[in-house]
């Protein structure tokens, strides 16, 4: 209390009172302004507004713009609009809604979901606007309704455009779909921009490019009589169609990849290294987006949701997998680049590795060991021990730092929303979760196991970065947006997302040669797809453990339940001299990268490079190494 100076009560009240006077005057002025405004509106402008009120039978009626189409690179239509008959109600023209609905049930079929959606809209939208009751009326229903329409007041039979995906499940995971605007979306969107619109992009390109596809609502000012019947159109502002999207996706290639994966769970990304343009974006199993457009029924949705294969999951974008040995494609380069590892010195691989002072054996996938191996052998034969030693020499934080520029551990920036980030572990990351980092974790990070997680999108981007000589491009699905009316296209400009800075440019060439020998030498783990290839491929197999194996036990594919079998991975690019395509393949529980994943990549590369869908059809000779 002693610190508070003695208050000068007189001065304080003088300050306050002078301020009160000022603000009192301002308040009075503003109230006077309101008073004058009211007098103006209610006396002087009264007649004007009275007329408007009378004529407030002039209604703006929104006209929906057609949504932009989505096409593949060759003009194959992936998303289109086709006309359907809809039954709509204008609430203010209806005297007794319940009895009207009862009568309508005699004419067209109405289920609970239709009625529920209708009642919700009824509460939320202005009473003079058309509200959708049923869509996709059959020809017969439309005809029956057309005949009886004059007896129903406020009932409209309209021909509307509805979104349709002609290729059904093809590419659903990048294409996405549109669906009815829900309550949360209603909160978020600009209501004016969606006036009269029922649908909005929900997933994939449809939501990521919503603004481009949407277009602009037009309107008609319609004069109506006291009962709301339209008398004449006073003014019409045409809607502006949404822009069409041309994707870099090749629908044929997409179909080929999806068919090759078949019933297996997996993901494939094929990309043009130089531009980042995505040629195929596969996540299997797929599902048909068409039922989602007007609201899928609960049973079908539950079936999709509870399917053990999880078709709704976008594995290509959100699947997070241990990269397994595919990480060696990148860490092999690190072996040449980092200071505290001598890549010129061969390493002895007895089939296992222990940390100093520990008896825990980190095993090589090859029980008998690879013997004395140099970097080339280690990459070609996928020697684990070599990379255990590299990892220990580098330490985990240096591995993270080295892998980051390839795009691991962060969003690749592909033009789709909700991309997953994967994970590059570090000491700090573990500490933030309240746990110490163990040396053993460093060891297994070197072969892409442990905490490290990558998405297929990241894996493809990183592979394309190798192919592109260290320049990482932003992956892009959309190649151009095209004005539907003028057909003027605005092309997407390829964007650089990062660059690998090398001490020596030759290091990358050396590593690419190693990766080429993985495919083209008979000791290479992917020789099965390389021996008969008419062009040069660089690649790396990977097999990611799903279930830990106890010390002293061995893994037997036959004895392991399918869900616990290893994931098969393969990354590659070709032709090596002038890469046209980079591919990442993951087959969940597929077993070996060489046998399950690599042939899929070969088919894709054949299609892109040779323009045919044949390829590694002939039985492949068994590779000595089958990692």
């Amino acid at each position, binding site marked *: 209390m002693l610190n508070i100076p003695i208050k000068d009560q007189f001065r*304080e009240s003088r300050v*306050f009172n002078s301020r*009160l006077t000022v603000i009192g005057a301002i*308040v009075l002025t503003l*109230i006077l302004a309101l008073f004058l405004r009211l007098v103006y*509106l209610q006396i002087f402008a009264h007649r004007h507004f009275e007329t408007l009120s009378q004529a*407030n039978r002039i209604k703006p009626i929104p006209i929906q713009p057609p949504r932009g189409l989505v096409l593949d690179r060759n003009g194959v239509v992936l998303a289109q609009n086709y006309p359907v008959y809809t039954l709509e109600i204008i609430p203010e023209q209806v005297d007794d809604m319940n009895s009207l609905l009862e009568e309508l049930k005699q004419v067209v079929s109405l289920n609970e979901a239709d009625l529920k959606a209708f009642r919700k809209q009824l509460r939320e939208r202005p*009473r003079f606007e058309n509200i959708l009751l049923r869509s996709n009326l059959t020809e017969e229903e439309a005809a029956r309704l057309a005949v009886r329409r004059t007896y129903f007041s406020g009932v409209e039979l309209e021909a509307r455009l509805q979104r349709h995906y002609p290729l059904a499940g093809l590419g659903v995971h990048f294409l996405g779909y549109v669906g009815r605007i829900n309550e949360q979306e209603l909160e978020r969107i*600009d*209501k004016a921009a969606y006036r009269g619109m029922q649908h909005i992009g929900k997933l994939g390109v449809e939501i990521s490019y919503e603004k481009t596809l949407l277009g602009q609502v037009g309107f008609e000012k319609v004069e109506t009589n006291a009962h709301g019947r339209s008398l004449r159109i006073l003014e019409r502002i045409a809607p502006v169609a949404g822009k069409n999207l041309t994707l870099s996706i090749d629908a044929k290639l997409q179909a080929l990849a999806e068919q090759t994966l078949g019933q297996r769970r997996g993901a494939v990304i094929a990309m043009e290294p130089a531009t980042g343009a995505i040629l195929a974006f596969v996540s299997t199993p797929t599902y048909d987006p068409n039922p989602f457009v007007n609201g899928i029924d609960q049973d079908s949705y539950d079936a999709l949701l509870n399917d053990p294969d999880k078709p709704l999951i976008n594995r290509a974008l959100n699947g997070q997998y241990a990269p397994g040995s595919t990480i060696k494609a990148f860490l092999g380069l690190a072996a040449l680049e980092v200071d505290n590892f001598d890549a010129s010195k061969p390493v002895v691989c007895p089939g296992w590795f222990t940390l100093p002072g520990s008896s825990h054996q980190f095993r090589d996938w090859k029980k008998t060991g690879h013997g004395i191996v140099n970097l080339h052998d280690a990459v070609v034969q996928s020697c684990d021990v070599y990379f255990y030693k590299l990892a220990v020499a580098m330490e985990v934080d240096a591995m993270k730092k080295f892998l980051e520029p390839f795009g691991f551990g962060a969003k690749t920036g592909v033009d789709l929303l909700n991309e997953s980030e994967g994970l590059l572990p570090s000491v700090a990351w573990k500490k933030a979760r309240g746990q110490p980092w163990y040396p053993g974790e460093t060891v297994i990070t070197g072969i892409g196991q442990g905490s490290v997680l990558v998405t297929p999108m990241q894996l493809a981007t990183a592979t394309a970065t190798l192919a592109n000589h260290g320049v990482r491009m932003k992956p892009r699905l959309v190649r151009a947006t095209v004005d539907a009316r003028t057909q003027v296209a605005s092309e997407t400009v390829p964007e650089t997302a990062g660059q690998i800075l090398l001490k020596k440019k030759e290091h990358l060439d050396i590593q690419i040669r190693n990766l080429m020998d993985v495919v083209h030498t008979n000791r290479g783990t992917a020789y099965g797809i390389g021996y008969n290839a008419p062009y040069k491929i660089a690649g790396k197999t990977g097999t990611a453990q799903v279930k830990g194996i106890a010390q002293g036990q061995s893994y037997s594919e036959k004895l392991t339940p399918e869900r616990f079998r290893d994931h098969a991975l393969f990354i590659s690019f070709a032709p090596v001299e002038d890469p046209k395509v980079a591919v990442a393949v993951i087959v969940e529980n597929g077993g070996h990268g060489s046998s399950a994943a690599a042939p899929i990549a070969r088919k894709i590369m054949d299609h892109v490079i040779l323009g045919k869908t044949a390829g590694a059809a002939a039985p492949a000779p068994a590779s000595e190494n089958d990692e």
Partner: protein
Amino acid sequence: MNIERLHLDKTLFYALLALAAISLFVVYSGSAKDLDATLGHLLRLVLGFTVLLFVAQIRPEILERWSPYIFVAGMLLLIAVLAIGVIGKGAQRWLNLGFFQFQPSEIMKLGVPMMLAWFLARGNLPPTLPKLALGFLIMAIPAFMIFKQPDLGTALLVFGAGTFVLFLGGMRWRVIITLLTVIAIAAPFAWGHLHDYQRQRVLTLFNPEADPLGTGYHTIQAMIAVGSGGIYGKGWLNSSQAHLDYLPESSTDFIFAVYAEEFGLLGSLLMLSIYTIIVARGLLIAYLAKDTYTRLLAGSLSLTFFLYFFVNMGMVTGILPIVGVPLPVMSYGGTSIVTIMAAFGIIMSIQTHRKITE
């Protein structure tokens, strides 16, 4: 019954009661004769007056002691809302307390002016520059957090309440002029940070016809309602604008349009007078208050009440952009009625306890 023994101020109490009574008729009409909505409004009014009665019993000295704690509690709740809001995405203004939805930003409408009045009262007026800067932070931080929710209307009111305290506390004119200059310069930048729809609302103000389907629609329809009411109005339950559904939110933010259409200029002026009486009485109580804290608080709360109805009536009559500010006491719904009544409880406590203690 002598209501002064209940620590109620006659003028304020009867004026508020009159507003409440009128509001029941207008909500009934504006909600298209929805009896449930009207009863809901009645229930909130009863709750509001109960809170008023309760708060009026609390001595100003106790309010002053509590001020910092109320502010801190409000801040913690705002942080909680933002934290949950980040997870849920989109607008998040409420905390669900199970039996009712609670909007912490409402607390700040009282918490910010109470805290600032407490803060300025610890020392001489006018405040020094560093003190003023700290005071500015006390109101700007919660206001910004509310703006982020996003709730532009409430953020504006909280910021306004704080500004009133600082102004009444004797913020120097040269500081005010400097701030106004800074705002004028910063406005174009702030413009860039507004949501598209907020920008649209401001632009629409200058030319409502430009967007007859979108934002301009509300302004045009509200002006038609008010203007077509004329001098005598169309009579109770005869608002064609509301009943033909041309008028949006006819029982909440735009309720004044319904009222003005049905009761005309005479009704409008009656209501404007009641609001003016309430503000004038509040400012008089501030003038008569016995110490710095109560002066600043009563003044700021009365001016915030003014801001409320001025912004609402301004937007309905088309002289201000559309921000979601309800018309105090009249608008249906929202927790704002309880906050407003609590504010008047405080003002009445300041008035009645002064009389009794001296």
